[in-house]
């Protein structure tokens, strides 16, 4: 249970939290009893309900603790259902948050939110959605980060990530369902249209691929699939997840050529890859690692094509960003021990 503290002023309270190793470097909204009680009005769930153990320290997380962190992050009570949905996905062992909390690498859990409630609370999937300026995106993701640092204990001085990455401050978007020519990610993942769903995938920052020179599919995929297969990303050498977000104009160009979402997904899976001879030149190539691959290759066959997406279910294809925008965001993944998780949540 959280202890009560008293300081001479609100500024001293902010400084009090700057003295903690688990805050993120931005000012904290002091979680007064009144603000926490107001935050809890955002859900019908019992404040004492336990959501699970947050790795690697395995402290128990309750709904009340989530509300405390949401206040500190600057969130509004109506954001709380999305945060609770996101935490449920993050605590699913399939996502392997334990590994990411302790890895030397720097990936972060990206939350992609589908459904009407995301629109209602102003969660942005359009213009500038990966950048600053949107309270719902910023504070929902920041709440998750503060929980991972404080309750999980994964803050920098206690963990190993060599660089960290900017998306460890916050990493939460909606899908731009309104401007997508296709069904949303949640439907692709087996949920009903119109259901409120959060999907979490461990990935790197977005790499922005700009192509305003092509609109026919056979050329339009090239810079994206090349980026997907880049030797500096983990996916070239590991069977793991990846998120690709197409801007609406890019998605439209594929759709105008008669391609469904499944067609584009297959095109990216088929075209992104490297030949063994290329992979062997450096990078993460090691013979001992090949037994972790889903794709079985002969290491002596230099012409053998190794798909970057070794299992189609590991490519999460969404539409996000705004018009005009001839841009695709590629988010490389981490390693074979994680799988993206989708959960329906009660708004």
């Amino acid at each position, binding site marked *: 249970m959280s202890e009560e503290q008293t300081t001479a002023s609100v500024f001293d309270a902010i400084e009090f939290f700057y003295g903690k190793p688990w805050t993120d470097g931005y000012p904290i909204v002091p979680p007064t009893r009144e603000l*926490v009680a107001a935050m809890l009005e955002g859900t019908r769930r019992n404040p004492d309900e336990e959501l699970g153990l947050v790795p690697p320290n395995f402290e128990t997380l309750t709904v009340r603790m989530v509300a405390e962190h949401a206040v500190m992050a600057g969130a509004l009570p109506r954001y709380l259902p999305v945060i609770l949905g996101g935490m449920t996905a993050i605590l699913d062992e399939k996502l392997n948050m334990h590994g990411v909390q302790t890895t030397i690498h720097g990936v972060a859990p990206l939350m992609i939110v589908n459904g009407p409630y995301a629109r209602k609370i102003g969660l942005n999937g359009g213009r500038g959605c990966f950048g600053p300026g949107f309270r719902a995106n910023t504070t929902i993701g920041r709440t998750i980060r503060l929980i991972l640092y404080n309750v999980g204990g994964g803050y920098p001085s206690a963990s190993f990530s060599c660089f960290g990455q900017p998306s460890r401050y916050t990493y939460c978007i909606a899908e731009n369902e309104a401007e997508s020519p296709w069904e949303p990610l949640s439907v692709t993942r087996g949920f009903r249209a119109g259901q409120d769903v959060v999907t979490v995938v461990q990935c790197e920052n977005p790499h922005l691929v700009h192509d305003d020179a092509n609109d026919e599919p056979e050329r339009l995929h090239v810079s994206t699939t090349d980026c997907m297969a880049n030797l500096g990303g983990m996916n070239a050498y590991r069977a793991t997840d990846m998120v690709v977000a197409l801007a609406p104009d890019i998605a439209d160009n594929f759709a105008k050529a008669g391609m469904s979402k499944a067609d584009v997904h297959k095109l990216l899976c088929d075209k992104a890859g490297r030949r063994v001879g290329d992979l062997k030149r450096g990078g993460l190539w090691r013979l001992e690692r090949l037994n972790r691959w889903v794709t079985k290759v002969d290491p002596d066959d230099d012409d053998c094509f190794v798909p970057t997406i070794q299992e189609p279910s590991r490519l999460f294809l969404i539409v996000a960003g705004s018009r005009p925008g001839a841009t695709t965001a590629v988010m490389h993944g981490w390693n074979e021990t994680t799988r993206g998780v989708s959960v329906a949540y009660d708004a």
Partner: protein
Amino acid sequence: MSLSFLDPSVTTSKSVAMAPRPESLAGKTVGLFDNTKEQADIVLEALGEELMRSHGVREVITRRGIHYSKPAPLEIVEEMARKCDIVICALGG
């Protein structure tokens, strides 16, 4: 104006004491935990042989995890705690 608020800090006071170090390895059972990182098995095999040859270790028990990005399985942790005087966890590289 003073302000009262909650402090949700849960991890800052947590620390685990180092296990006591043995004076000698003679007659001891040593556990070697391979976290599956590449070549950890080679390093540990050589280490185990050397511990028995030069330091009088009675027995070496080697166990392997699932993946270096996942925690050691609880049953292996408990088994090693039960059987071993000392456990060395090793990374490959």
